[in-house]
């Protein structure tokens, strides 16, 4: 066979595979999402796409964190949104004094880096809080409950959520603690659309962090250990991986991702006690719709839920954004019970 023939074959198979993919549930969902986004932005203006991209990236980050603890620790974390809330809180209490002092003696370089410092310190502080939570709550729980672990975990995380929400209310009050924008610069103009720098940064950050996270899980020693624990815990123990340490690390990373999402969305979600409920809902929604399986699915799911909510808010008004996703979820469950992206892996968390 000639080279040209081979090339044609490859092209054909690629084309066939693309058609197959487009016919699969995942393809249909993604194509519908893109079409909806395009139609919506033609109708109502391009800010629909911008908002979808900005929040979708962050929901993807949160869903990835949630899926990670679900896979590695069999822990269904219903306090995940509260780490988002902690992220907003930490970022707020770091950025406000910085902005105040910078207001008095202006320093352009610091002005540029202050938000970055706030966001990354939220990442590390919330990650640290996550590690402490694991040591204080989940390590004793794991020691004591064996067969009821899933259920007890669920209840403990609910208690944890209550504790964090009401702790926030007691210590910091119910006032909205937010910033108008991280960077006090005029918004960028991209192809006739004005996008604020905060939003651009949030989107780019989400993309970069997801890529870094994927690389970390794939190539680093720790990432490999985490994947090993998620696949086979006794096996991982046998080859000398310290499973408790991996558990702590996993929860810390997951919480840190939630904190990062919270910190970089501070301009959209001012910090108040129950701010985490929406993000928690979104990340669980992503996990259910997508079906547990791959990070790619979670990313797509993040954008899908973000688009649904942006469209609902624009066309129906505030408050309907729990109703419409619910109807869509019911439809998905009727036609594709394993989730859009087809979970091949069925683990202990479904029992």
């Amino acid at each position, binding site marked *: 066979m000639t080279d040209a023939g081979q090339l044609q074959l490859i092209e054909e198979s690629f084309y066939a595979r693309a058609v197959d993919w487009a016919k699969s549930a995942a393809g249909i969902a993604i194509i519908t999402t893109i079409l909806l986004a395009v139609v919506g932005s033609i109708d109502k203006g391009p800010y629909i796409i911008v908002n979808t991209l900005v929040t979708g990236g962050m929901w993807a980050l949160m869903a990835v964190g949630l899926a990670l603890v679900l896979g590695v620790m069999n822990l269904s974390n219903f306090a995940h949104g509260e780490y988002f809330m902690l992220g907003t809180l930490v970022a707020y209490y770091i950025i406000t004094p910085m902005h105040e002092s910078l207001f008095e003696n202006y320093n352009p370089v610091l002005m540029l880096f202050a938000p970055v410092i706030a966001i990354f310190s939220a990442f590390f502080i919330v990650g640290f809080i996550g590690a402490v939570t694991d040591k204080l709550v989940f390590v004793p729980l794991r020691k004591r409950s064996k067969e009821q672990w899933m259920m007890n975990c669920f209840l403990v995380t609910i*208690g944890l959520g209550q504790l964090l929400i009401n702790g926030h209310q007691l210590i910091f009050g119910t006032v909205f603690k937010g910033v108008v924008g991280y960077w006090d610069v005029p918004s960028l103009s991209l192809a006739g659309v004005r996008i604020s720098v905060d939003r651009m940064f949030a989107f780019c950050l989400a993309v970069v962090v997801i890529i870094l996270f994927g690389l970390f899980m794939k190539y680093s020693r720790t990432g490999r250990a985490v994947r090993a624990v998620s696949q086979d815990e006794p096996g991982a123990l046998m080859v000398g991986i310290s499973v408790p340490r991996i558990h702590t690390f996993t929860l810390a990373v997951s919480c840190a991702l939630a904190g990062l999402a919270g910190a970089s969305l501070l301009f959209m979600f001012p910090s108040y006690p129950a701010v985490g409920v929406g993000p928690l809902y979104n990340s669980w929604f992503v996990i259910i719709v997508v079906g547990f399986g791959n990070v790619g699915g979670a990313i797509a799911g993040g954008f899908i839920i973000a688009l649904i909510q942006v469209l609902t808010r624009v066309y129906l008004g505030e408050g309907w954004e729990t109703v419409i996703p619910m109807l869509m979820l*019911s439809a998905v469950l009727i036609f594709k*019970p394993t989730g859009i992206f087809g979970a091949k892996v069925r683990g202990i968390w479904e029992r």
Partner: protein
Amino acid sequence: MENAYAKREMNLIERILDFACLSPLGALALIMVCILPLVPPFNKEYLIRWLIMGAIWGTAAISFDLSGGYINIVNFGYMAFFGLGGYTSALVTIHLGLPAWVGIFLGVIPPAVLGFLTGALSLRLRGMFAICFTWFFGLALMGVAFKWVSLTRGPLGLRVPRLLETTSNVPYFYIVMIMLVVTYVVLARLVRSPMGLAFRAIGQNMEAAKTSGINPTRFRIINFTVSCALAGWLGGFYAHYYAILTPEIMHTQKTVEILVVAYIGGRASLWGGVLAGFPFAMAMEFIRSTFSELPGINLLIYGTFLILIMIFYPGGAVQLYRTYLVPSKNRIIQKLIRTRY
């Protein structure tokens, strides 16, 4: 044969207790709670209000436990069904002019239908995902209640006619106690029947239950329908007692309150929730009214309590009962806790 013989031997009281699935101890406790509003420290109106609160929590915990404890799927949107029953009953009374007690019974229908749907849709999901589905369902219902302003008046709250003309709380207390007993008896008899066995089998191991010829579809749907219908019934009473209904009642927060009560009482027991409901409701109301300058402190204590219970004593109060009272050799204790259930 032996069973029939035992039946003949029973006297009237024993037969009544057996019908109601109560142990003599349980019946005594129930009677004591019933005379509480008449004895001095409890005969103040605000304390009777707290008692009614406790009874509502206890009743809600019983039907919550039917799905949470037996088939091991926590209905995380439970209070949305409760609120749905309340709204139906209130709207029927307001717009059709029916008496309130008819409304309470009509309020059973929509939650039962939606419970049926939830059970049917969430069948495809397992464990945690089914819980999430019920949660989303509850949130969606609350969203509708908030946004359908022309019907529910949204966050402003719906003014509901009261069930009785009196301002006294005592009649309400006895009505809710009757509802508690009816709910308990219906569910305890359900759980004692072969169907209850099927529930337990599904809850413990779905695959094994399927292998032994149980159709999980049917039992999960029945379970959800019954549990939600009873929630709606109680919701109707709630609406006509407090006379004001806001969508807040459907919030997940409220479900968590019921959940804490049910789990501190102990899962898969039905009566555990009642046992925990009264003291817990009293304690929470006490904390809320004493530390009114610290809003949210009662929920903070709630969360801490839930975490500690789950880590150190996941069985709840029922676990205490099963480890200390049931194996006890003392003949009086044995007589007191003897049931077929």
